[in-house]
């Protein structure tokens, strides 16, 4: 704060407020409504934790680090089990992260291109229509993307994957240990990429349009081409905003269930670290849907543990993303 501002600053007179009875009730109701989100979030955490407790108690940290998912006879060894179950979530956790990362890596350039087009390239009217179109894509239900992934993308995608494998197979990412390119993390990543592109694009577009116009006209007055202007003014300004948008997309991709269920083969016994073209993937959300129907009580409890892990991860990602986006908006406006 500069010196002049300090001097001019006036301290306002305190105004005492006496609220009527009706207003007290009204404000009370509003506070209750405002706290609903907090109450629900803690309720979700509490119920998932309670329901997951039997398995978390029995397996401890092993539940998150172990890599085997076997329902057995549904009894714990302490209950006299003849065929003890083991529940290890690690392949699913890593699998979720892997497909979300693939999705974000594909979606970021696409979303930036779309946002740039809508803000700087397309004529005003076309840009408006295009924006509505992109927003509408964000509203397409995930089951539609699931059907698309299964019936349309998979046959083509398998060909692309095979091509990548034969020509670039020396790169660890494109290696496969056994053939079968159809239900791979790569495929799930493409489906998720199309789903999260509108989200990242919407955030980026908002950030782009909050770049101060004087910076842009200044750059243009100095004779900058569109590339120079975007490279030196727009992108540095919106770097952290785009990061936040990408993290929002990451959170969405981590939690996506149905679309992934259609295009990913779950593989429980080992962590598939980088072989993205192979049909051995993992996804926590998809695991819950695929096992829920036939699970016994103990496995249901394990699925609640999986849900708890998913909830905490997406919550953390989303909270971080929100903080990044809102701080950039505040400091730069």
């Amino acid at each position: 704060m500069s010196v002049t501002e300090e001097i001019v600053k006036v301290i306002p007179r305190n105004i005492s407020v006496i609220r009527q009875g009706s207003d007290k009730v009204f404000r009370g109701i509003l506070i209750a409504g405002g706290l609903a989100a907090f109450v629900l979030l803690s309720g979700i955490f509490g119920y998932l934790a309670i329901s997951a407790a039997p398995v978390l108690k029995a397996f401890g940290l092993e539940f998150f680090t172990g890599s085997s998912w076997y329902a057995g006879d549904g009894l714990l060894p302490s209950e006299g089990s003849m065929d003890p179950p083991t529940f290890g979530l690690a392949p699913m956790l890593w699998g979720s992260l892997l497909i979300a990362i693939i999705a974000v890596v594909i979606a970021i350039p696409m979303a930036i291109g779309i946002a740039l087009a809508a803000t700087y390239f397309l004529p005003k009217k076309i840009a408006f229509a295009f924006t509505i179109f992109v927003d509408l894509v964000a509203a397409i239900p995930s089951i539609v993307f699931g059907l698309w992934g299964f019936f349309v993308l998979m046959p083509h995608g398998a060909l692309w994957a095979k091509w990548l494998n034969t020509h670039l197979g020396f790169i660890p990412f494109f290696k496969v240990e056994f053939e079968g390119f159809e239900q791979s993390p790569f495929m799930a990543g493409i489906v998720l990429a199309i789903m999260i592109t509108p989200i990242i694009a919407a955030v980026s577009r908002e950030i782009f349009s909050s770049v101060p116009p004087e910076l842009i006209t200044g750059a243009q007055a100095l004779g900058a081409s569109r590339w120079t202007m975007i490279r030196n003014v727009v992108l540095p300004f919106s770097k952290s905003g785009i990061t936040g948008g990408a993290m929002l997309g990451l959170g969405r991709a981590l939690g996506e269930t149905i679309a992934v269920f259609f295009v990913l083969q779950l593989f429980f016994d080992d962590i598939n670290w980088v072989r993205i073209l192979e049909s051995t993937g993992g996804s926590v959300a998809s695991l819950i849907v695929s096992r829920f129907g036939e699970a016994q009580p103990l496995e249901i409890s394990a699925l609640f543990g999986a849900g708890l892990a998913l909830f905490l991860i997406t919550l953390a990602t989303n909270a971080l993303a929100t903080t990044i986006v809102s701080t950039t908006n505040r400091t730069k406006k």
Partner: protein
Amino acid sequence: MSRLLSDTPTQPWKIVDPEYRIQQLVTHLGTPLLALLFTVVSPMSGFSGFTVTWFIFHTISAGLLAKYGKKKKSFANAFLEVFVGATIFVFVSFVATVLWPVISNGMAGVTHLNLIFQDAAKVGADTSLNKGGLGHAIVGTIIMVGIATLISVPIGILAALYVTEVRGKLTPFVRFFVQAMSGVPSIVAGLFIYSALIVSGILQYSGFAGALALSILMLPTVARTAEEILRLIPDDLRTAALALGGTQWRTVRMVVLPAAKSGLITSAILGIARVAGETAPLLLTAFGNNVLNLNPFSDSMSALPSYVFTQFLLGGDNDVKRAWFATFVLLVAISILFTAARIVADRMKRN
């Protein structure tokens, strides 16, 4: 969205000679043809091969055009233009392949009106498309989404009103948690209702349980859009109402809410569009049913997305056809809702 440079100066450098226009046309139209030729001749094949080769050819030719045609060293600029064009092209064509099968397969079902009005009580794998339908799923979706709307729209608007009207100490806290809640995966919402209400025996698998799961997903969407709308109401209106001696309750009820009415409707519609297509939570809460069930409190209930899911898993030829048709109905409904939300919002902005 605001255009930055709305009052653009005349920009004399933008005037280009016709020769350059012709060169440009040749570059932009010639390269796809060249790429098409290349795709046919070379081992690169299919749509993807075409896109990749086109992108490479187009970048090179646009760069050459930029360098020699206009006599400027602006290869990077040309590359950026091609890149932006390519992202639009790739995205739009991907989305087209998403929508096209839904439309083409869905239109095949439009001629069978029974698909909309009958339920699936007597439908087996071999039943022809002339018998049975997905009416029960349509009704189920309407009931569940309706109940979810009744629950989450009031709460969402209250949360938004807290942020814009009370402006108390908890404001950042409330906004943060609403935002965090919008990231809750749909399957987790289903698990929560399952453990809190179904395992504990308060409810059975029912439409109401499904509606509760949907309302968890709907709440943050409604709260966030409603907040944005309420922010648009000028503070002058509020202070004027207060200066006339209105209490805060009267100010909100008689001034703020009526002014924001159409915007709040938009927020409700967007919330509905957000949850109408949710599948995962319904599988855990409302389950699914073959017959029409009008009572949300007893017995399982089917909805369009969960109907699509189960039909797909059945896997027979006719089952999948029915699934496509249900997807078509769902997509049409969501597009209508979305367009309605846009129209209402636009009308509000114009006022």
